[in-house]
């Protein structure tokens, strides 16, 4: 199979039979009603697989891949399906390999701060399992209660605490992979010293297009002695942004700096009564961790910097309950928005941090022009913004306006020196924006990497690269119908 040639085969009854024989009937589903749940992930995109398999070990993954390859049908790896770029959607159908039953924590090496896990382990479950040893797994995407380590690896997922501790790629040391010929190969190891090209670095964030991860060796971090969370309330978003710059210029690197704008405050406050003033323009949520003395002096310094730059009020929470209440405003923001509007669409752009305010303003202007509401929550410390477009998918033409406005916002990020995704992935959603960021030579180099893994288009076709012939377009009408059918809160 050469690159660019899409798999031609279809999933026939005999393919399903072979899968059942190899994996066992209880690990294969193929009826239309059963498959509905596997048509979508966290995005607008839809794609119908013909069969979903639930392997419980590496050999079963390998067997499923060999069968699919034998019949030239696409293979789409899937974790919890919480992704926000269409990464787990079977764009042109085929076999979905759901890794949710491979959820063993195989080893925790407390002394060397390493865990070996299967891909279906839920992100937060890993942190919970190692907490008694004073350890945790640092990358914390907002979906961490549901999303899996395998999915995190596919998308190189981030989270609020990326600012100080990095994204998934900074925490994965070794992987076991199933390649597209069904072979099983280990890359990396238990340290960064393994000789040879950084294949782990190549696979993390490759969106399931190079290999299926069946085991991961990850770094664990030590739980901090102390954590303090600050909430700073601002009348002007510029003051909030300048406070972020001042904190970093003062030599501090908080573990998280999140910003919430007025629209989100309006949605969140009636629901959780966090005490956010409805007339504030922006709220900063800042977290510092480390030694007790470190968080005390940093929190004090941050409070002063924010106050000097016009914060109306700064609250500091030390105990876990108070901290959770402050975080609730951030963490429930998306679902609170869901209560106010029938539909919403989460975007993911990045700009150099100092360009943030300008781009946020641009999102307001673009949304207004398209007759849409927009609410922004973002990782202010690293310039990663998440505008949420709020709309009613049943209104004629609404989806088209959302997609057009979303594209314009991404364009604004690129023009400010940024890019089209910081932590959600390219997937289906943004593949056609890639050429705004990369030229043909850049993409050709990426295709060389893809070729070296030998997957052709077998694994997760139509993802992560500009639309190729045969991938088609998910038409706006189809999307609108799907959204109307799915109703309100379907896109969380």
């Amino acid at each position, binding site marked *: 199979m050469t690159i660019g040639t899409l798999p031609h085969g279809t999933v026939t009854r005999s393919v399903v039979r072979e899968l059942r024989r190899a994996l066992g009937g209880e690990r294969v589903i193929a009826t239309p009603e059963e498959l509905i749940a596997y048509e979508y992930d966290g995005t607008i995109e839809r794609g119908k697989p013909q069969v979903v398999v639930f392997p419980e070990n590496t050999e079963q993954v390998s067997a499923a891949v060999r069968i699919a390859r034998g019949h030239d049908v696409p293979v789409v790896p899937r974790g919890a399906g919480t992704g926000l770029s269409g990464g787990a959607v079977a764009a042109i159908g085929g076999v979905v390999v759901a890794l949710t039953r491979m959820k063993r924590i195989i080893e925790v*090496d407390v*002394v*060397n701060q390493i865990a070996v896990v299967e891909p279906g382990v839920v992100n937060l479950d890993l942190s919970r399992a190692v907490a008694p040893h*004073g350890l945790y797994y640092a990358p914390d995407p907002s979906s961490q209660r549901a999303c899996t380590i395998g999915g995190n690896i596919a998308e*190189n997922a981030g989270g609020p605490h990326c600012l100080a501790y*990095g*994204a998934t*790629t900074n925490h994965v040391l070794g992987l076991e992979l199933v*390649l597209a010929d069904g072979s099983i*190969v*280990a890359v990396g190891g*238990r*340290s*960064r*010293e*393994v*000789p*040879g*090209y*950084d*294949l782990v*670095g*190549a696979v*993390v*964030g490759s969106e399931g297009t190079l290999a299926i991860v069946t085991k991961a060796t990850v770094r664990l971090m*030590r739980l*901090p002695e102390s954590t303090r969370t600050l909430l700073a309330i601002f009348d002007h978003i510029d003051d909030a942004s300048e406070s972020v*710059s001042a904190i*970093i*210029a*003062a*030599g*501090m*690197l908080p573990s998280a700096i999140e910003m919430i704008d007025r629209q989100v405050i309006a949605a969140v406050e009636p629901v959780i009564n966090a005490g956010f003033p409805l007339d504030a323009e922006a709220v900063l949520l800042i977290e510092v961790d*480390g*030694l007790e*003395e470190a968080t005390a002096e940093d929190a004090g*310094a941050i409070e002063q910097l924010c106050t000097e730059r016009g914060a109306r009020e700064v609250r500091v929470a030390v105990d876990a309950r108070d901290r959770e209440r402050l975080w609730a405003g951030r963490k429930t923001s998306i679902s609170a928005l869901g209560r106010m509007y029938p539909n919403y669409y989460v975007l993911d752009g*990045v700009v*150099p*941090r*100092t360009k943030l305010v300008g781009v946020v303003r641009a999102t307001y202007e673009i949304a207004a022009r398209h007759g849409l509401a927009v609410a922004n929550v973002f*990782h202010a410390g*690293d*310039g990663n913004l998440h505008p949420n477009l709020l709309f009613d998918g049943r209104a004629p033409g609404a989806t088209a306006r959302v997609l057009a406005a979303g594209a314009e916002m991404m364009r604004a990020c690129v023009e400010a020196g*940024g890019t089209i*995704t*910081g932590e959600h992935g*390219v997937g289906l959603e943004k593949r056609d924006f*890639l050429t705004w*960021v*990369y030229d043909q*030579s*850049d993409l*050709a*180099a*990426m295709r*060389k*990497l893809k070729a070296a893994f030998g997957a052709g288009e077998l694994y997760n076709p139509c993802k*992560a690269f500009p639309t190729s012939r045969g991938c088609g377009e998910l038409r706006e009408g189809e999307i609108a119908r799907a959204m109307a059918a799915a109703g309100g809160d379907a896109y969380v």
Partner: protein
Amino acid sequence: MSDAGSAVIASDRLHEPFGRYAVDGVRPSQVWAIHDAGELGAALAEASKGRRAVIPHGAGIHVALGNPPARYDIALDLAPFAGVIEYEPDDLTIAVRAGTPLAEVQSLLAERRLLLPLDPPGADRCTVGGMLATALTGPLRHGYGTARDWVIGMRVALADGTLAKSGGRVVKNVTGYDMHKLHIGALGTLGVIAEVTFKLAPLPRVERTLGIAAPTATAVCALAAAAQRGGLPLMAAEALAPPAANALAGLHGWALVLRVAGGPNAVERAVREVHGLADRSDATTAHDIDVATFDAGWRAAFRPDGLAVRISVRPSHVGRVLEAVDRRLAGHGAQVAATVSAGVVRVVAASADEATAPHLLATLRDVTAHAGATIVIDAAPRGAKAGIDVFGEPRQDWEIMRRLKDEFDPVRILAPGRYLGRL
């Protein structure tokens, strides 16, 4: 590409192939000086056409790393391809050309109290490109990780002369494959690094460097582990064998050097904790040492020279490996140190020659065989490299690496033979 191929080898840019461009004793027939990205692309296109093997050259500090070249026709001297492209201190990012000396970057950053927290051996002289191509690390690795954690964008000249970029100038980015990870540590065998964008760290507000001496390596490593368990804010935690302890920290016996950083109160508390740890063990009292002296000494002592070996083991095995290495290499004047938390043990026997190096190497292999260690030879006399792979034996994933090489360098002009498994 701005220049035609012929302009690249115009006589005014054609250096004499001095010995300083030699790699493992092999001299190139030509040296091409590279001044900009266009010229680099044109040079590679030209080399590709003639199937002439090139090796990129920075300051020549780490040139000893790698297998002897299978072929070597042209040295690409990237030293003239230097300078800052874009520096945004408020965004904590900087973009530089590959030939830029690392030390120049650090001085510029220090003016705004920023830091690129990478400190390989020879950091005072190496170029940014050389540092990335070899991916060597130093004591700061304890607190800051490796080069792959700090590179956010890269422009690379491929074998056919095209320039390809990946990443960008934002600190968080999942747009497209993470291509630059492939080139870090690849010795220029998949492409030649042209331009790099880094994210930066703020310099800590307060910093103290403490040295503690202890009778054994195990004791030193136990102290390092205790400091880590205690969550102390450490930029570095480096274990030193007696000769290095004496030379770099003025201590007798084994030593642990802890670089404590943060706000004033946090540093005060951490220093107190370190004293407590030392007092409760059979170590000496912790005392302040001069970080500049330590840094300079470390960079010089562990520059790959003579025989230089990097041993990687589980952090919990570092103490045992250090002791065994020190015992078996006694009398050979080797410098030995370890970044304990990373499980990296460095051994440099600068005076080793072709006669002594093979024996030392065999001893090191023997010593580490039981510890599940991997060994990479960062430098060895030419004769000692014969018949061995300095990166060790390829593993099952080497097949993917070979295919990567096939894709990126089909006619084998990029430092052929120098990488793992002679790629």
